[in-house]
């Protein structure tokens, strides 16, 4: 039986608590009275994954069973989430691969010949063959990749995009032509957090810049409160409008999966235990790891963390009509991640781990670290933000990983040139977004290399727009001062220093909440 999440009040019995900071972690002694939000423990996994998948495909929500939708001579497209999900990467076999195998088995039985598989990476980087293979599995990879029928979506391939019209609010809908012209589009997702899935899958994953710019902008993001709550997120409202138009054109069979919180395999499992329950072995492992990390070169640390593969258990799989499926999916996600939190606090503390959606097998550069902290973690709430309006956010990350030139070339220019001029998401978006989005060199790297799209760093900055608008102070503990300053923030050596620095904003005895994340949590703030 897994225990629910809860809010710990730090007292004299509380041991130091783990705080992630990039390629490492520290033990922090929080002030007495600090609230610490712990996610629920891992839900039990479904006992038979194949049976659960079969069940979902044969008894879908508000749609006919999948075999009835398949027929000889049809055009079938299977799209799937890219490597930005789940985080960390799942240990093989990936759940998407298992589902795709089931879908393909049914398609083969129905005599379907024209099948293409598209990674719905939107403006994310193209995945390598090995990364694709990890997701879809060896069987599927061998059957489709060499023939060019398994590929990454290219949002800049004008010939293979299809404009489906506009929404009632004038939002362009431009998605993959293959997907748009298919008789059936099967979308296989991993709904790691509440933000994922629903109409966001096809409407964003297979869309071009022309379509994405309508909701991926500072104005929409500030109104997405939070983007983990699609009913109160302007971004999702836009995606839903787009999705409903797509639904009228393309038959979408959505398959959504939910995972439990088994993120850290042995010997890292102490990182997801409650600290006061650590055994002597856990303490020794932690001490050993801390020492090892303190002397390990950056490359080794990077390898150590990025080679980690999570042993997630599947908690649910639902298939059928997008919205009906997503409602069921969200129930499971909430069951795994939701924690009731009473009221806001003056200060919100968050530790940024080594990986986010955009640096799988890459480095967490300062912009991505900001996106993780002020974007994803800050927005991990329902109701109202964990920190009050005008409060302070304290983040832990050294901000010293630098930029991966292969994956994030436009980030370098964004950091050096754009942020040097302004850190206001609305201002930089207005002035520079178009230029980066249409830059031929970035476009070339996105299409032929493994680079994120030129406009992508802007999107990262927009993710943080709501937090930047909401809080008055952002302080990074243990960060490179120059980098923090370039981002428009301040750096402190310790938590005590950070609280001292924040005292001008929140006073000398602020209420503090620390989100003990990862594993993933979603604070329902009353």
């Amino acid at each position, binding site marked *: 039986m897994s225990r629910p999440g809860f809010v*710990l*009040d730090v007292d004299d*019995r509380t041991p*130091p608590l783990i705080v992630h900071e990039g390629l490492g972690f520290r*033990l922090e002694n929080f002030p007495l009275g600090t609230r610490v939000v712990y996610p629920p423990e891992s839900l039990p996994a479904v006992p038979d994954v194949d049976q659960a998948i079969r069940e979902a495909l044969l008894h879908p929500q508000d749609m006919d069973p999948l075999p009835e939708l398949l027929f000889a001579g049809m055009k079938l497209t299977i799209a799937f989430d890219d490597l930005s999900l789940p985080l960390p990467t799942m240990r093989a076999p990936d759940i998407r691969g298992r589902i795709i195998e089931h879908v393909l088995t049914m398609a083969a039985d129905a005599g379907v010949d024209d099948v293409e598989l598209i990674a719905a990476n939107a403006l994310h980087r193209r995945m390598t063959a090995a990364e694709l293979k990890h997701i879809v599995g060896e069987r599927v990879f061998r059957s489709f990749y060499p023939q060019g029928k398994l590929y990454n979506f290219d949002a800049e391939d004008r010939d293979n995009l299809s404009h489906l019209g506009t929404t009632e609010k004038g939002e362009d809908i431009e998605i993959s032509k293959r997907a748009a012209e298919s008789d059936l589009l099967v979308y296989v997702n991993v709904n790691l957090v509440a933000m994922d899935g629903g109409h966001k899958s096809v409407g964003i994953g297979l869309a071009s810049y022309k379509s994405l710019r309508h909701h991926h902008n500072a104005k929409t993001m500030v109104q997405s409160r939070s983007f983990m709550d699609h009913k109160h997120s302007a971004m999702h409202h836009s995606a839903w409008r787009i999705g409903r138009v797509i639904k009228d054109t393309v038959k979408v069979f959505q398959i959504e999966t939910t995972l439990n919180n088994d993120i850290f395999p042995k010997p890292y499992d102490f990182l997801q235990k409650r600290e*006061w329950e650590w055994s002597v072995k856990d303490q020794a492992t932690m*001490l050993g790891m801390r*020492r090892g990390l303190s002397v390990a070169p950056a490359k080794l640390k990077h390898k150590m963390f990025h080679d980690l593969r999570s042993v997630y258990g599947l908690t649910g799989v639902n298939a059928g009509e997008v919205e009906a499926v997503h409602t069921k999916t969200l129930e499971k996600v909430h069951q795994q991640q939701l924690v009731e939190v009473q009221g806001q606090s003056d200060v919100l503390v968050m530790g940024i781990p080594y990986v986010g959606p955009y640096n799988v097998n890459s480095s967490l550069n300062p912009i991505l670290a900001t996106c993780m902290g002020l974007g994803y973690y800050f927005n991990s709430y329902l109701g109202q933000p964990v920190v009050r309006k005008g409060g302070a956010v304290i983040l832990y990350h050294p901000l010293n990983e630098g930029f991966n030139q292969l994956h994030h070339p436009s980030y370098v220019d964004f950091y050096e040139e754009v942020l040097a001029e302004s850190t206001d998401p609305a201002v930089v978006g207005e002035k520079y977004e178009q230029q980066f989005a249409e830059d031929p060199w970035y476009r070339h790297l996105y299409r032929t290399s493994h680079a994120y799209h030129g406009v992508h760093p802007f999107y990262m900055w927009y993710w943080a727009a709501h937090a930047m608008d909401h809080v008055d102070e952002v302080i990074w503990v243990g960060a490179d001062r120059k980098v923090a300053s370039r981002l428009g923030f301040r750096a402190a050596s310790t938590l005590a220093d950070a609280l001292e620095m924040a005292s001008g904003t929140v006073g000398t005895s602020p209420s503090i909440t620390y989100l003990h994340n990862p594993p993933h949590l979603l604070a329902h703030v009353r």
Partner: protein
Amino acid sequence: MSTPAKGLVTGGIDDVRQVARGWRWGRRSQVPRSAEEFVLPAKSTVFPSDWSRRKPAIAAREVAQKGGLQPLFRSVSRTRVEGLDVLDRVEGPVIFVANHASHLDTPLILLSLPDEWRRRTAVAAAADYFFDTWWRAVGSSLFFNTFPIDRRGGTMAATPGEVLADGWSLVIFPEGTRSTDGWMGKFRMGAAFLAKEYGVPVVPVAHRGTFAAMPRGQGWPSKGRRQLTIRFGEPLVAGADESVRDFAPRIKDAVAALLDEDRSTWWEARKRVAAGAVPDPSGPQVAQWRRVWEQTESPEADAPTRRISAWRR
């Protein structure tokens, strides 16, 4: 030493220190108060103690008690023992039933007993506290001849009966746990049940001063050799028609009367027993601090501080 190596060492020492302090190395780990309701029920890993009642262990215990425990105990406390003459009038095994206020209670009782009784006396100890790790189980069995009992479940484990049947006398603290304020708590019925079941007498034991010397939460007796007093009472035997439910309160009353006797005199205590006016051993219903305050005072031995050595125990 080069700087990284130095950093490795000093950082390592700092880390170990922080963990040692945070996770209370050498002491019992604690759960933050707000997390208590989410603690999983402990797995029952009770270590066996049969070995501790065999000859090699008995010999080792004799050395440990006489050579280590006794001198140490005498060096940190002064004791006054009364009423041992009752043991001349009773055949073992018996069940010694005492109030429980401190970890000093067990050594006080054991070291107060005549050697031939002490060697054949075992102590019932909470399985979840004394037998949860091997080293704690070995330590307590070796020094105090403890055996595990389950204090959470309603039924007693099989062990106490077996130990008793083997001819060992038992020390049982029917309160089940140490008092938080020095006053006596509720008595559970395990001791009465055993006495009735195995037809052995119960010897009530009352002691005072252990709470003042080393209350709950303290790891070592307070300085200054605090005075402890212990008094053994007349053996009680359950009547043929007496139920466990009737016998248990009788044991408690006997301990209460002994406590009263220890505070005053035998004669006054007897009169109060006759009048049904024995002071409530659970203490006055006043503010908690006053209850603790009263118990933090060590009992004054009525005898001169330095008794003739032959009379001292």
